[in-house]
């Protein structure tokens, strides 16, 4: 690693290098900010966010026009009439299966393979940006993208839900009622928990993105990974495998809506997501740092 690279990385691993440069630069967020600007500026990402946001709005309007009976339709749908905050929860439980992983696939497919496809990857690396740092920034932007995507479901959902159905006390899964403030807090926890799950998926996507130069291939591969996980998760004979599947823990967000909250499965879900993130980020690093960048 050259001196310039170490300085740019913002960290100095070797003490000798640190001695040469006693005035360390603080961690620059410029690359991350530019990355986020690019993600936010892409037309396809904006269109994706609109689709994500449309689902809770459609659900809320449909429920407003005809009250569903209990036990019918998607989870939480019948609870919407009692509290608007169930709109984002119902939308998240529907979109978490396919739409949100699809959005993550688009983002992570663009991360490395997209740059390579456009031919911008080599320019990015001649800036010069350390490849490890580039991967860290890409992963950080994907994590922010995960929160972004879920917020794109939850915030419009909460807004229209409150507008149409008001802010009554929220009935937990245990049948008790909690106040509006506590309910908002629970919704925030659900958003963060699901974002952590998507971030684990994003690490897989980042790794796949380093394998190819075709972004659509990377996106499809991550979608295949997600669907395969759901299929494996639905086979009861593979019960030993289920705790190791990322998607198996996603629906555990319901544990945050019990009274009192149940932490065990949530903790295991977060650990699984963290494990996926570490393993696949390191795999992406192993692949990317030794790769010849030709485009």
């Amino acid at each position: 690693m050259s001196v310039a690279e170490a300085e740019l990385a913002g960290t100095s691993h070797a003490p000798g290098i640190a001695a040469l440069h006693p005035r360390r630069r603080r961690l620059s967020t410029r690359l991350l900010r530019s990355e986020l600007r690019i993600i936010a500026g892409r037309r396809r990402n904006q269109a994706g966010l609109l689709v994500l946001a449309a689902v809770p709005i459609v659900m809320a309007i449909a429920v407003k026009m005809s009250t569903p009976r209990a036990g019918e339709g998607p989870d939480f749908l019948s609870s919407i009439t009692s509290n608007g905050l169930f709109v984002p929860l119902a939308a998240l439980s529907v979109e978490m299966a396919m739409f949100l992983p699809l959005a993550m696939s688009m983002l992570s497919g663009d991360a490395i393979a997209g740059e390579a496809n456009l031919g911008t990857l080599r320019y990015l690396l001649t800036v010069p940006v350390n490849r490890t740092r580039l991967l860290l920034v890409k992963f950080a932007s994907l994590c922010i993208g995960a929160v972004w995507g879920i917020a794109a479901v939850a915030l419009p959902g909460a807004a229209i839900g409150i507008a149409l159905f008001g802010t009554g006390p929220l009935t937990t899964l245990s049948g008790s009622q909690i106040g509006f403030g506590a309910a908002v807090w629970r919704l925030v926890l659900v958003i963060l928990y699901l974002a952590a799950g998507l971030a684990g998926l994003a690490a897989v996507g980042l790794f796949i993105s380093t394998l190819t130069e075709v972004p659509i291939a990377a996106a499809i591969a991550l979608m295949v990974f997600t669907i395969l996980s759901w299929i494996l998760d639905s086979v009861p004979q593979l019960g030993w495998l289920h705790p190791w599947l990322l998607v198996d823990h996603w629906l555990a967000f319901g544990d945050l809506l019990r009274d009192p909250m149940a932490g065990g499965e949530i903790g295991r879900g977060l650990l699984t997501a963290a494990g996926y993130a570490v393993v696949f980020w390191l795999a992406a690093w192993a692949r990317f740092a030794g790769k010849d960048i030709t485009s």
Partner: protein
Amino acid sequence: MSLFTDHPRTRWAAPAAAVAVIGAVALTANHVASADPSLPSRSAAQLLVDVQQANLKGLSGTVVQTSNLGLPDINLGGSTQGGSSSLTSLVSGTHTWRVWLAGPQQQRLALVGSLGESDVIRNGRDLWVWSSKDKTATHTMLPAEGAKPGAASTTPGQLPKTPQEAAQLALSAIEPTTSVETSGASVVAGQQSYDLVLKPKDTASLVASVRISLDTVHHVPLRVQVFSTKTANPAFEVGFTHVDFAKPAARQFAFNAPPGTKVTQSTLGSDVGGTNGTASRAPGTASEAKPGSAPADTEPKVVGAGWTAVAVANLPKDTAGATKSGAPGGTASEVTGQLQRVLGLLPKATGSWGTGRVLEGTLFTVVITDDGRVAIGAVGPERVYAALASK
């Protein structure tokens, strides 16, 4: 860093190491539960005395129940994707309960599904059954004298004078059929516990052994495992994965039906079948009949004794009435239709006793004859046929 620069392939060691570390941590987390070898050994009688003298203020915890009964997948509760919270879905698979106990008057069980929950809450004389999926609540007023102490295993009134006496009585009652031994200790839910192992003396039984783990400090049963002669893993297991012996807050037991809930007031006559979910039913006590729900003509006849007893009964005309009355999710006729469909899937058997369908589970065998008799026992099919023929 130069190693990674000169030999890029060595970088793959990093993700491989991460996988190895995660795997190792996961393995040790499962096997770290090695019991403290310095525990003083206790005899079976001493353990039973401990259990009776247990002075439990209350507890809360998570119970996981796993059953591998070898049953066909019967979806009586309708759609059960991803861990159902319906109380009728208990027959197969893995289920998670959350439990709160505070003395004999306050208990709460919550069956946890992926995005749903069913609760059974007892607070004094109020008994509530709540289902989040269909937003229904059933309220029952219990008689002033607690008829069913729920999960607590004390039966006041008929106790012998001292716990020691009771323990001896219990042991001598099962002694002819069962060998009782203590086999060291184990760790359940992070608690050191003694293992009490019951083994049927009659080798014809499908039950190989029953292992009960008792907490060493609070003398509470923390886990019950039933081993079958057919499989190595427990065929039925119910045990705490997390337990806290502090008395839970009173608000855990307060239930007010939330607005928008369909509340059914129930009298005790049509009792709900949800409260007898504990696994502490001692086998061989010849009380296989469901209390209060069996009319006279369906009173079962018991052939044999102890672990190899086979109960033979006549099916009521309305098959559904036998077990699932009052259970949420599915009317009686729906359940009957489902049962008929399931019966059609079972293998046929013929013998001197007639013809019928056989369900061979890992722990028991059920034979339902075409002429409307049902025989069930924790034995292989031959013993059940013999019991049917002896009628």
